[in-house]
């Protein structure tokens, strides 16, 4: 029988669809009678979706363009000087 700790250890693989069939079946069996782990799985799934959908840490276009310009300026300048 798997314990809640076992479940927690495997939940990552399960969420990513990476768990082997026998493991998956045992996890689902555990879920059938464990409310805590059911909640854990559900909220973990939702967390993942929130993170993926959030579009966090986006770089504004203007800032990005500015950085690119600066980098390319340095690269092009170095290219026109005689290289070693």
């Amino acid at each position, binding site marked *: 029988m798997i314990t809640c700790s076992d479940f927690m250890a495997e939940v990552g693989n399960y969420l*990513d669809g990476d768990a082997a069939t026998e493991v998956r079946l045992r996890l689902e069996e555990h879920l059938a009678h464990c409310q805590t782990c059911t909640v854990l799985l559900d909220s973990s799934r939702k967390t993942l979706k*929130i993170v993926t959908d959030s579009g966090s840490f986006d770089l504004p276009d203007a800032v990005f363009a500015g950085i*690119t310009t600066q*980098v390319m300026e340095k*690269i092009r300048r170095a290219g026109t000087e005689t290289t070693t």
Partner: protein
Amino acid sequence: MPEAQIDAIVADHRRAVLADGTSRLLSFAQRLCREGPSVKRQDVTELTDSGLNQEFVLESIVVTALGTFLCMLAIAISIPPEFGIRPISPEVLTHPPTPTHIDRVHSGPNLALPEGEFDGFAPFVRLQEQIGFVPNLLKAQMARPDIVEAQIGLIETILLPEDLLGRAEKGLIAATVSNSNRNQCGVALHTGALRAGGTTDNDSDRGAKDRALTEFAGKLTIQPAAFDGRDGDLLRLAGFDETQILEAAAAASLAGFLDTLQFGLGSAADFEPGSPAGGFSWKIAHPAGAGLRPTVGEFPSDPDADLVGRAQKGDPDAFEKLIEMHGRRIYRTLVGILGNRDDARDAMQDTFLKAFRHIGAFQYRSKFSTWLVSIAGNTGIERLRERRNVESLDDIGFESEEGFRPRQIQAWTDNPEDLYSRAEMRTLVETSMMRLPAKYRLVLILRDMEQLSTAEVASALGLGIPAVKARLLRGRLMLRETLAPHFRASQNSADAQGAPA
């Protein structure tokens, strides 16, 4: 150990009175030195099966390689021995016949040592900065980081400086030695490392000097017994001074050291053996050189291959396109490590400049975008070190390594994303992510935001896949914990339509 015993061992260790294990070890060492290409993985496993542990065998290989180094150096600079010479029996001195065909299918590393996590291992970061990659044979020894650090120190002192001999010249010496030792992985390693520095020397006077260096290194490797002071004159005649000759000797000996290591460790080649060495052209004649190619895995096709190829030839427009395509991912990676936006923006410039400098070293062992992420990773960690005297991501944030226990176990509302505006949600996620320890945050960003595969994350960060999975799990659970109070089913009136349990 009594003198007579040493005499007996030197004369012929197989006849000396030694424990079985010791005798086997000495035979292995001898074979490693003299018939390196013929050493197979099973020769190493025979040692470990006979009761020697993996680390001990690793040390033995390193010591053997050190022996090669010291012998070559002593011969190259014609040092007379400090102690009396002990005779070696004729049977031992008979050179083994050169095998005409060596079956060199690469079957993976010879030792089964864990490679260890090397997040921010300072010598690797330095080496990555200087040559654009970390050779596999160094990674293979990470069970002993002290040894790896010492070897990198040797490489930095002998092969990398430009003040006496140029890197290109030392690369030529090293590649000659490897070729003479029939170590095609070594040839590819040294020529690959040269491409990183863009060392393509178009000076037409180089011919005579290069030939002298090649002859010097070749003879030292293939005919050490016949090598003497007059071979040093070769270099003097070509215009090298005494300090340069000394450096040439050191470079050749170090290459011999690395070759012996390679034969003993059996690490995967860093570059496709046999690929042309950029603009460098040299020919080494060696009778057994042709037809000895270790086989390496297939390189998967990279959607950026075309642009990368052009950028490698120096096309700035192609590189600019690559920045445009991957810049946002690099930014997120740096946010992951540094934990704040301004630092991440600063570090982006550094990352791209570094990438352009080293793009010659990129050989499609991973996708280009993955390689770029690893450069960002190293740049980020270096910044952290400057900022906070921190050695690796492991140092940051609280660590409760023993069983992280989720405390928030109330059910969540059905549609958490309906509860907040997009902007609020983003802020919530960002704030929560910033509270995570960097090593978890980084993996979460790469895997869950940037959608890299677990294998790609592992490759980019120099971690094993189990380590990535462990960090991912921990990070996701911690994040869940932080978010939970905002999404609990019972807690909100905006969710009146849904009927949460």
